[in-house]
């Protein structure tokens, strides 16, 4: 089985048991630190997270149920060289994806060139309302979360691109703060690149994408509200950027502009960093039952009265079916070779692929094209015969809704568990910011699957997080 922990690449311990260079100092430190001390620090972290209220809400549980995302005190460490490659690859990808969105909603050259089939236009996430609409700077995905996994010393794969309302960056920032508080001595030993300026970079970018001619733009963060699973993050980012955290009910549309209701009367809003899905943004244009959105927002947006970040209609580019074309996009728009590889992907709408996948379900990971958060997926090697049989039926009912990928042996990272320190599978989500520039801070959300052997790292499925360190100097 490919998810056998002992055969997976380990971030700390190379094959043969030797400690990898980036972890050498850390490993020394770890050797003279007791399990009791680490457990004690973990408890301290939990207490602090709980007190500050760094929690997330879980759908389907009792209303208002708040949980902590488990935090692991052992960091994921990347060398400067590794990071350089990852960040260059992620930036390249986001530049291509933005170019693709701009093209798709204008001239559609990529379809004319025969690189992408015209069927993309019937994708559910394609927004015909956006056709011909110009957005400032041609930027659609201002914030992109690129999920990267590793299977070997030099094998990195992009698992998916998150271009709608990617979340998790608050954990990157809070985990770092926590590590510095719990283990200040480690930061004296190691030169770790700082990530704390993320909110400033984001704010500068958001201000840069206001409509031309707007002086001193007002930026707000639009949240679905306190019961959303990522509400903590919304509040956190708004606070860090010093912008208003608004809900749909705080905004209204008048004279082709968006205003917020304030104690001093209406105030014009220029840029909305929205953390609400397209479908809920404007009951007039999309889901008429939405209580979260702002009536008339879409028409102001189309007329250039306000900037939305991310733009409407980015979902078509992070769809798992579109994913397979990203390497081609990079070649087509940038004339470059992809720095990061895709995971080989089978499209179940194609007959040959479908036949292969159905015969090999027990070895593959099958995902819904538009699923997220680890819902609606099958991890073949970890599933029972019954689960596989049930999933087969679901695939057959709607094949084009699924893709399949080989079960990758995700790398593992030492993690504090009850019995001691054991390897657990991890992934990595750096956040690429596009605005004035396309850039990312040297860090990422690192998710860890806490259950032994599990490959599902999503927080909604019991995953935890780790601080990610990018070292300043090459070894």
């Amino acid at each position, binding site marked *: 089985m490919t998810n056998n922990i002992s055969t997976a690449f380990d971030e700390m311990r190379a094959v043969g048991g030797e400690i990898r260079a980036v972890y050498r100092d850390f490993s020394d430190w770890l050797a003279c630190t007791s399990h009791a001390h680490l457990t004690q620090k973990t408890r301290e972290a939990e207490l602090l997270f*709980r*007190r*500050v*209220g760094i929690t997330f809400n879980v759908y389907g549980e009792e209303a208002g149920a708040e949980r902590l995302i488990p935090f692991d005190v052992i960091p994921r460490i990347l060398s400067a060289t590794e990071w350089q490659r990852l960040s260059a690859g992620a930036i390249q990808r986001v530049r291509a994806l933005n170019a693709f969105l701009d093209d798709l909603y204008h001239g559609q050259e990529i379809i004319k060139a025969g690189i992408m089939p015209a069927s993309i236009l019937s994708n559910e996430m394609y927004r015909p309302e956006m056709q011909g609409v110009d957005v400032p700077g041609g930027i659609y995905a201002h914030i992109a979360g690129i999920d990267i996994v590793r299977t070997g010393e030099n094998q990195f794969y992009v698992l998916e691109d998150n271009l709608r309302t990617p979340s998790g960056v608050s954990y990157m920032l809070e985990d770092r703060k926590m590590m510095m508080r719990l283990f200040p001595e480690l930061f004296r030993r190691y030169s770790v690149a700082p990530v704390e300026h993320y909110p400033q970079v984001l704010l500068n970018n958001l201000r840069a994408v206001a409509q031309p001619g707007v002086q001193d733009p007002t930026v707000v963060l639009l949240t679905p*509200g*306190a019961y959303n699973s990522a509400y903590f993050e919304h*509040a956190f980012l*708004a*606070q860090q950027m010093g912008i*208003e*955290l*608004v*809900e749909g*009910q*705080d905004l*209204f549309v*008048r004279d082709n502009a968006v*205003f*917020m*209701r*304030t*104690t*001093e*009367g*209406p105030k014009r809003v220029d840029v909305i960093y929205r953390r609400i899905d397209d479908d809920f943004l404007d009951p007039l244009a999309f889901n008429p039952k939405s209580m979260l959105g702002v009536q008339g927002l879409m028409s102001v947006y189309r007329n250039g009265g306000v900037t939305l970040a991310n733009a409407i209609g980015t979902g078509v580019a992070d769809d798992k079916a579109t994913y397979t074309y990203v390497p081609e996009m990079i070649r087509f728009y940038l004339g470059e070779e992809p720095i990061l590889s895709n995971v080989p992907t089978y499209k179940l709408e194609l007959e040959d692929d479908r036949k292969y996948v159905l015969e090999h379900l027990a070895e593959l990971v099958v995902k819904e094209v538009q699923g997220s958060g680890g819902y609606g997926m099958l991890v073949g090697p970890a599933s029972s015969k019954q689960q596989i049989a049930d999933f087969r039926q679901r695939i057959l009912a709607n094949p084009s809704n699924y893709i399949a990928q080989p079960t990758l042996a995700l790398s593992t990272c030492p993690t504090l568990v009850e019995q001691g320190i054991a390897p657990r599978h991890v992934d990595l989500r750096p956040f690429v910011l596009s605005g004035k520039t396309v850039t990312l801070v040297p860090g990422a959300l690192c998710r860890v699957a806490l259950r032994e052997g599990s490959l599902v790292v999503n927080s909604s499925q019991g995953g935890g997080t780790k601080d990610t360190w990018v070292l300043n100097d090459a070894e």
Partner: protein
Amino acid sequence: MLSRTADHLYWMARYIERAENMARVLDVTYRMSLVSNGDHSEVDLWKTPVLIADDVEVFERDYGEYNAANVMRYMALDERNLSSIVSCLNGARENARSVRVAMSSEMWETVNALWLELRQRTEDITEADIGEFCDWVKSRSHLFRGVTFGTMLRDDGYKFVRLGSFIERADNTARLLDAKYHLLMAAGAGADGAVDYYEWSSLLRSVSSFEAYQKVYRDTIEPSKVAELLVLRDDMPRSLHACYDELTSILEQICIVRGYECLRQAGEIHARLHFGRMENIFNNGLHQFLQDFIVHNNTLGREIQHAFLNAPAD
């Protein structure tokens, strides 16, 4: 600032203030029940907190009998009672959670810690814990006030927090005085000097005014002076006058582009307290005066709500 943000801050402060006042009333009732007590029955005594909260009907329907256990359950723990201490603290936290961005992180942490501890404290609470529980609520409210004073930016948010606190406190002081005064005067003065002393002094203690009374009057406790202290003295922080000193001063700062009606109403109420005389108030009846005050204070609350917190799009 956002109207909704102001609304949450205002109600967060109101709920904390209300929880504190509930705790004060319960605490003093509990302490009075410990004093050997010839004049009032247990029932009368435990009915007072319910009277103050204006909840007699609901209480009698759901609980029937007035006794320590029932009243404590209703006033402190019952989540169906929207003014119970638990409901108030839940409400404060819910409001705080929606606008944590608008306050200092210490404020949020104080409210959140309060809420987390509340769950533990109320788990196996018994009648004997009531004094300690009330003390705890009061001390957390003091802490919240101190943290707010010590850490919050003096922006509009701060003003709305203060508005909420003082509107609520004025209402609570007026209700407390009205109910107690009624009860004590109805019993007739001076039948038993000792009981009277304990009862009036416990009323004063419930608004942290016992020492203040001694300092200001240097005299035995007289009902009319107690009333004066809690209505007209501007140096007594829980008096109606002191609350309206604060309210008018805050409203003068925020009623610039809108909300003139709030300023006018507050000024009118303030003038009665500032220039009023206790003998006139007594001649026309303290009860009537306090009832009118409660109505006017509520009307001002609604006006603030209308002008700033549920601001229309104009």
